[in-house]
């Protein structure tokens, strides 16, 4: 028996964030039925990378889910949704806020039909406020949420966070919010509405910036790769790439000097304390350290620092982290057999439960693969279903 066995999710959403949230729940046994537009389907069916015309991306996100093709704005589609709502636990949508009201599928209406329903709404800006219906994008959300202002080099333009960082935070908030609502239903009864936005989710990751500004007027903006409060905590050039080193204490600094045999820096009176090392760091200590790191390869420095217990890592590209022994030892990647693509490698789930097993799949459903089965379950005849398909309701 899986953790979420018996939980039914009707997922009308498109894109990354909500699909990833329902993927997490599907991995623990929830039955997820995607509702997709007849003909076109979820937009991620066209997202790269593609193999033989099929999207690996779609299949990564939607493995193990079912698909029903349904025009929810049509009378038929609308009626079918209202019937399905009686039988499900969680309803997920990511339309423009307000759209569901216009087609008679608002939270209030669905809650009347099923008071235990958890209604999940995902949007760029959220379901209230002056920007509620503004056009949005991933980049716009980053601009709006301060996270982008905090990324990049001082005096230069802000830099976009990659890859899809905001959407991943949103998917975590969606999954956590759904679980909170399920827990509440289990403990106290009744459903409710969950409203998660991309902008809120990103804004929530800006660390201590609001506290710093509101207490001492300090503006946490982009500062490059170094930390102004401790040094050297930075990324340095090496012979063959870059290395990130985290030194936060005097003891770590002296050990670092020993590791790279930097007697002159270890004895330099300016750098005996953190206060001294952070003083005009970019002009004083940084060039001296980088001069030394340039002598070695990134893995040579890693080895030398690790022996001394200094936190450090080479800056890896995707191929280096995927093939790293630690990635294998900790199962960060998952090798799967896909019916459509053969052997497939995908990132594993980022959390592991000791007792409750999870299972991920890379075989997403064909568009409408489960339409008949689901409609049959509602009592529709084969003839009726055929007619719905002919009229492009399904």
């Amino acid at each position, binding site marked *: 028996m899986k953790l979420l066995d018996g939980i039914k999710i009707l997922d009308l959403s498109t894109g990354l964030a909500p699909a990833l949230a329902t993927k997490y729940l599907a991995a623990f046994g929830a039955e997820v039925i995607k509702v997709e537009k007849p003909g076109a389907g979820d937009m991620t069916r066209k997202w790269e990378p593609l193999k033989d015309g099929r999207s690996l991306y779609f299949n990564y996100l939607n493995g193990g889910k079912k698909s029903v093709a349904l025009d929810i704005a049509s009378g038929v589609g609308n009626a079918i949704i209202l019937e399905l709502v009686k039988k499900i636990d969680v309803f997920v949508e990511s339309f423009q806020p307000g759209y569901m009201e216009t087609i008679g599928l608002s939270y209030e209406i669905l809650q009347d039909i099923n008071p235990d329903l958890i209604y999940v709404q995902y949007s760029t800006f959220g379901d209230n406020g002056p920007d509620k219906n503004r056009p949005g994008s991933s980049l716009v959300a980053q601009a709006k949420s301060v996270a*982008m202002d905090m*990324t990049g080099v001082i005096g230069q333009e802000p830099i976009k966070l990659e890859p899809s960082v905001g959407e991943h935070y949103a998917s975590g908030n969606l999954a956590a919010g759904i679980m909170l609502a399920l827990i509440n239903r289990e403990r106290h009864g009744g459903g409710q509405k969950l409203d998660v936005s991309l902008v809120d989710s990103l804004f929530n990751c800006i660390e201590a910036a609001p506290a710093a500004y509101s207490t001492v007027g300090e503006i946490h903006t982009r500062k490059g790769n170094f930390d102004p409060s401790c040094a050297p905590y930075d990324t340095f050039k090496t012979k063959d790439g870059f290395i990130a080193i985290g030194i936060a204490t005097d003891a770590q600094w002296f050990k670092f000097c020993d590791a790279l045999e930097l007697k002159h820096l270890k004895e330099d009176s300016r750098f005996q304390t953190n206060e001294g090392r952070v003083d005009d760091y970019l002009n004083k200590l940084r060039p001296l350290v980088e001069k030394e790191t340039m002598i070695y390869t990134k893995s040579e420095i890693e080895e030398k620092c690790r022996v001394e217990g200094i936190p*450090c890592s080479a800056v890896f590209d995707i191929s280096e982290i995927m093939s790293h022994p630690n990635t294998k030892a900790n199962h960060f990647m998952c090798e799967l057999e896909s019916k459509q693509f053969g052997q497939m490698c995908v990132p594993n789930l980022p959390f592991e*439960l000791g007792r409750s097993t999870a299972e991920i799949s890379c075989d997403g459903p064909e568009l409408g693969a489960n339409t008949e089965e689901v409609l049959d379950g509602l009592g529709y005849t084969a003839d009726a279903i055929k007619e719905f398909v002919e009229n492009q309701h399904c």
Partner: protein
Amino acid sequence: MKLLEGVKVIDFTHAYAGPYCSLELGDFGAEVIKIERPDTGDQARLWGPFKNCYSAYYSSFNRGKRSLTLNLTSKEGKNIVFDLVRNADIVISNFKSGTLEKYGLGYDELKQVNPEVIFAAINGFGRFGKYAKFAAYDNVIQAMAGIMDMTGFPDKTPTKIGPAIGDSYSGLMLLVGVLLAYYNKLKTGKGQRVDVSMLGSLVSMAEYPVLEYANFAKKISRIGNVNPYYAPGDIYKCADGYIAISVKKEVMWMPFCEALNLTIANDNRFVTNDRRLANVAELKKIIETAIEDKTRREIVDLLTPAGIAAAGVINIAESFEDSQLKARDMVISLKDPGLGPIKLVGNPIKLSKNPPVTNIPSPLLGEHTDEVLRELGYTDAELVDFHSKNIV
């Protein structure tokens, strides 16, 4: 009744990753007892900025919790932990792998005291292999996960994402795992362990780069601020800063040009999305020339009616005045016992019946030590003894 009312959390977390998770549980009504080292407490209490000698960093992530100081190396300290865990639902920590075990407070020991307890932990690089014992900082994790390589401009150095996402994202992933485990406990009565690593969390963000590399040996690396699929989709310099603009669909190109009074709508170099992507640098120059005298606000006001997604890049000071973030309660104000008035980020999980409780400030070090010990049944004489021996 609050969502997690009556749920007891014993919180060994410190710094940022673990406290992110227990803060969320507290917001939804769980009773969080934070265990801190006597004398210094959570290391984040030593992290700036400071006001009145109190850390604004610490106070960002410990709202709603009670603070109990405890010396974990003492026999009495350990017994107090066992007393706490006996009635707890969830234990959370983000020590280096093996630290709680070293104190004799690992899952095996705590399970003896309370078989139903959920034991949740964040570590740096994963539990297995030789990296498990290495210390992790956010910049090191971002470097190793490939995130740093993917952020920034191709001709410049890899860039660390400003906020410490290695911490907050692993904290969020632990929250999802803990809530799954707690739901299971409600259903079956059984506890279990939940494990998350900072590195594994950030690696999981790289879904399409993993798919591209595994299948086509294509390495996704940093490309700056442009969008690889459509143009315009970039950050543009204007009179008072930078503005993000996304023209996602072909049909939006004409309205975009009209809104900004650009005469290049039918220019051969830009007439289709493919042409615009091919000439993206020239396009950027033309757009920046057209908007150099306009403010972010003016540009957003021109583009929004045309259906074009645009927003000024705002800093933290400006965000406090942003009407949307205000409407969403994403900036909250409270009175910190050490720092005085303080603003913090609100909770992004908006539940209609169970709004998060965000008005309880962070505790002073050991503020609730005596209170918690009395609740456990310790006498005043025992309390005096614990204090004199520096056990609490």
